[in-house]
């Protein structure tokens, strides 16, 4: 199916939940309401014409200072039909979104990574521990307001030894 056909099919089923769809270089991103994410994902995976059985990744985007601040991106692929599609959902700071691990088990690590990097909570995730960052860090490095070089208080490991630092 072409990108437009997939979008029309999604539109027909979830018209009220779709916030916007943007086309760029033959790829369409459809933004849906966050409450509808489980239903939309379920539909995209189980509909025989769409059959998105392969999840490429789940990722976060920080659009500071926009409101709502975050976006979650789901990049999908169908091994059977050889087509790709992308859905997104907006998220305010402090809000949480339903996990899709039940639909695509591979989302487990992607969601853990997104959670620690952006401070986004995925509801009903089986195991939302930190994956890549040290346990004791309280900060979320991929947020736009996190300083590139780290900070002496929050990320002491990253702070260069030769700078003035109170032990």
């Amino acid at each position: 199916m072409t990108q437009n056909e997939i979008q029309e099919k999604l539109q027909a089923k979830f018209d009220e939940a779709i916030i916007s769809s943007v086309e760029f270089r033959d790829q369409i991103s459809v933004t849906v309401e966050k409450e509808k994410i489980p239903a939309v994902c379920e539909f995209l995976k189980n509909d025989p014409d769409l059959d998105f059985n392969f999840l490429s990744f789940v990722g976060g985007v920080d659009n500071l200072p926009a409101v709502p601040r975050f976006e979650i991106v789901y990049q999908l692929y169908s091994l059977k039909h050889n087509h790709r599609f992308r859905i997104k959902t907006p998220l305010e700071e402090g809000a949480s979104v339903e996990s899709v691990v039940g639909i695509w088990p591979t989302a487990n690590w992607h969601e853990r990574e997104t959670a620690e990097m952006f401070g986004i909570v995925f509801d009903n995730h089986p195991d939302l521990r930190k994956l890549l960052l040290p346990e004791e860090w309280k900060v979320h490095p991929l947020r736009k307001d996190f300083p590139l070089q780290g900070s002496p208080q929050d990320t002491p490991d990253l702070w260069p030894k030769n700078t003035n630092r109170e032990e």
Partner: protein
Amino acid sequence: MAETLSQESGYQSEIMELNLGPHHPSTHGVFRAIVNLDGEIVLNVDPYLGYLHRGYEKTCENKHYHQIIPLAERCDYMAASANSLCFCLAVEKLLGVQAPERAQVIRVMMAELSRIFSHLFWLGTHGHDVGAMTPLFYMLREREEIMNLFELTAGGRLMPNYLRIGGLIRDLEEGFLDRLKDFCDHFDARVDEYETLLTKNAIYMDRTKGIGVLPLEMAIANGASGPMIRGSGLAWDIRKSEPYSGYGNYDFNIPVETGCDVYARYLVRVAEMRESNKILKQTLDLLPGGPIRAEVPGVIYPPQEDIYTKMEALIHHFMMVIEGIKPPVGELYQVIESPRGEMGCYIISDGTGKPHRLKWRGPAFVNLESLNTMGKGYFFADLIAILSSIDIVLAEVDR
């Protein structure tokens, strides 16, 4: 199970928690896992990642597009050109430009050399992990030849840093094609030689057949790609399903095995080396003349000699170095088939010289997720073979 054992024999027995890594030779870098064992049997594997986390995505958000190319190559350093190819294709798509014919063929050359390079080193270390020391030395012999080829034309041996947005940094060095032809001519015989070491080796087969079984539905659910999914019986190769960089022009097969085990993944990778060599031979025939970089003033770097002789080229070059290239606002996802599977680059451009967001889909990271599924129920020593069959590069796992 442990408790019933202890009751019958009168001995105390309990589940052992064992720390594997991060500095274990079989973990190919700094990979750590907590393994729960019942005697010698693995009950659960819980990986702890991040020892090599460099904040790659955060760094990319603060760099100009051209500055990201060497960074990208340091992600999967075993197949450096595959990374830069993925990134360059993504940015070219953002800009709406295409690399000229000659550059595309040379890119395929570099990508396939990288694939052989990566599979060779995998084969050597994998053999080492299951107790066969000999293959590694043979693999390093051919790997050295490829590194010499990279060095000849690009300067760098491990990370050539040869691709540029819109094409390549410079044309092939004189003598490169002759040496590549020489390599292609004798490489098939070398693969035969490798196969005599392991393919029918009784010890190797005992160690790998029926070990680390990953059924196809589990592979798809876990997002496995590349030789992992082809070893589980699905003929999915992005070079065929979504051809990029002119892969549609080459005649090659997708090796598939249905064993779903470590041995199947070994067979797939060995066959892939032969197929890559087949593609390399075709690139030698197909290589056209012409420019090696697209000519889009202000977007693609002008040829080096023009910068010294033409005013406009100098101005464009200056502006691109100072401000970077500015793709239009938009977002896209570009995939390629790296030696490890689906390598993806998701870029959001906000119209400035730096990406607003760059998400790197490393196939090794996703493939590693299957370790727990594959490792359960086998001996601890088998876990090493299973881990090795995933072909992880920790730099790409942790990013």
